[in-house]
């Protein structure tokens, strides 16, 4: 991965956040019987571990323009999280290209990887720093993070004593305090309560106004309908539909109504 400005075919604007995913495929190698002990290597030195190839993403292409709110939907196991992780540079894809311009703040798998043994205060410090905040910024934004997550009374408690809803609130509060251009959100609202969902919606509106780029993965189609400029439907690692949220959602509903859908169905491609 070479650092520096990406030089896409259309020269992505460096000031706003943009994503260009081009024909990306990703396969996981899952060992059939995980051979992770030496005994197995010694007993069967010649037998190679059998891998099951799980194709998580196949030939996925899409672009997100600067300032766009982009929704991604699809059933469980369709590759949405893998797609976000590949975009965030956490997983390495097998083929294709991923170009990202702008600072990206990921919110993946309900959080930013807290250490359950550490206090909320220490976790804010570690994860904020890992996301790129320096000492001064962290000091200035610490109170805001705590206030947004409404965890003032619990900052010196270990994270393992937090409910999953509290952890998500804290994780989201940290992720949005980074000076990001692109925010990647994976099911941020899944475990939040009503007031937190309300708060999230307010931040979405604010980010849109500020021209931030947002990619939102969710099962909440109403949210996509409300906020997204465009949407993408992922099915078995394929892009099934890409275009206006209303069309893509309609396509998703049609897909759900048809239990055994072939992947050879025509793909809706709406002009962007």
């Amino acid at each position, binding site marked *: 991965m070479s650092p520096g400005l990406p030089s896409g075919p259309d020269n992505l604007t460096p000031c706003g956040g943009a994503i260009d995913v081009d024909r990306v495929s990703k396969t996981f190698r899952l060992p059939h019987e995980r051979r992770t002990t030496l005994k197995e290597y010694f007993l069967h030195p010649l037998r190679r571990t059998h891998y099951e190839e799980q194709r998580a993403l196949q030939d996925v292409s899409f672009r997100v323009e600067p300032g766009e709110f982009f929704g991604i939907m699809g059933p469980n196991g369709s590759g949405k999280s893998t797609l976000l992780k590949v975009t965030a540079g956490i997983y390495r894809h097998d083929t294709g290209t991923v170009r990202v311009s702008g600072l990206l703040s990921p919110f993946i798998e309900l959080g930013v990887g807290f250490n359950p043994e550490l206090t909320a205060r220490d976790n804010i410090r570690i994860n904020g720093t890992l996301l*790129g905040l320096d000492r001064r910024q962290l000091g200035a934004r610490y109170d805001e993070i705590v206030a947004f997550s409404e965890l003032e009374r619990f900052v010196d408690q270990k994270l393992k004593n937090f409910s999953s809803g509290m952890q998500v609130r804290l994780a989201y509060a940290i992720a949005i305090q980074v000076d990001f251009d692109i925010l990647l959100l994976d099911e941020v609202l899944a475990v939040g309560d009503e007031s937190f969902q309300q708060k999230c919606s307010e931040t979405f509106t604010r980010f849109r106004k500020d021209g931030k780029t947002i990619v939102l993965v969710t099962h909440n189609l109403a949210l996509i309908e409300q906020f997204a400029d465009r949407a993408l439907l992922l099915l078995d690692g394929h892009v099934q539909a890409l275009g206006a949220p209303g069309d893509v959602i309609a396509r998703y509903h049609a897909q759900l109504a048809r239990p055994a859908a072939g992947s050879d169905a025509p793909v809706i491609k709406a002009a962007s």
Partner: protein
Amino acid sequence: MVEATGFLRAPRTRGIRHRLRILQVIVLAEFKLKYAGSALGYVWSVVKPLSLFTVLYLVFGRIFKLGDISEFYGLALLIGIVLFSFFSDATNQGMVALVHRESLLRRLRFPRIIIPTAATLTAAMTFGINLLVVAGFVAWQGIVPRLDWLLLVPLLLELYLFTLGTALILTTLFVSLRDIGQVWELGAQLLFYASPVIYPVTYLPPWARDLAFLFPFTQVLQDVRALVLYEDNSGITVTAPEALGQFGRLLPIAITLVVFTFGLALFKRYEPWFAERT
């Protein structure tokens, strides 16, 4: 084929200063965590090597009378135990670091090397506290510090580099082969008895002595002992040049650099897949 992938990040996330800041934040939090919640806290970091020292001193120093060799046998033993405890703790904690922090690896993109490095640095902080205790005993013995003790700095750096290199190899292997945990538990124990921690290196037959000095830990240990304890009585303790020839120190130093470079290369080679394989 994977074509060029560009990531434009804020300069400070890539800068060395910010990486050091990340290390500092993680190391301080983990160090605090290690001793928080126990009644004696930091005292435990000193109790462990000191109790091991007491047992070994009574058995080997008194019963087997190794203490008769030199008035400094006890201190030499203590220095050996403290140095080896660091090597053993740092490599063990570095080995499991990636697997223990897998939830972080799967959620954020950052240089993975920070995780095992932070684990070895946390062990280095305990080591620092232990060194203070050693310094106390050295002062108690009436040994006066000299200017050439500054050579301790490059010696300890060499030990750290060797330790970090070993930890990087172990942590990369541990991701896909969990037995490495058992292997290294045994390996570290064998290395402890194979190194001249308890017994003088001169007790070994010449071939074994030369072999022992190829282990960079032995070279560092003997140099530290010679520097701190045996300045006036050269001949009592043997350092690498006496065993391996005039430039004998270069050999273990070269091995240190090879282990570190290999560990770094191995780690970098598998870094892109740590997130999905831990």
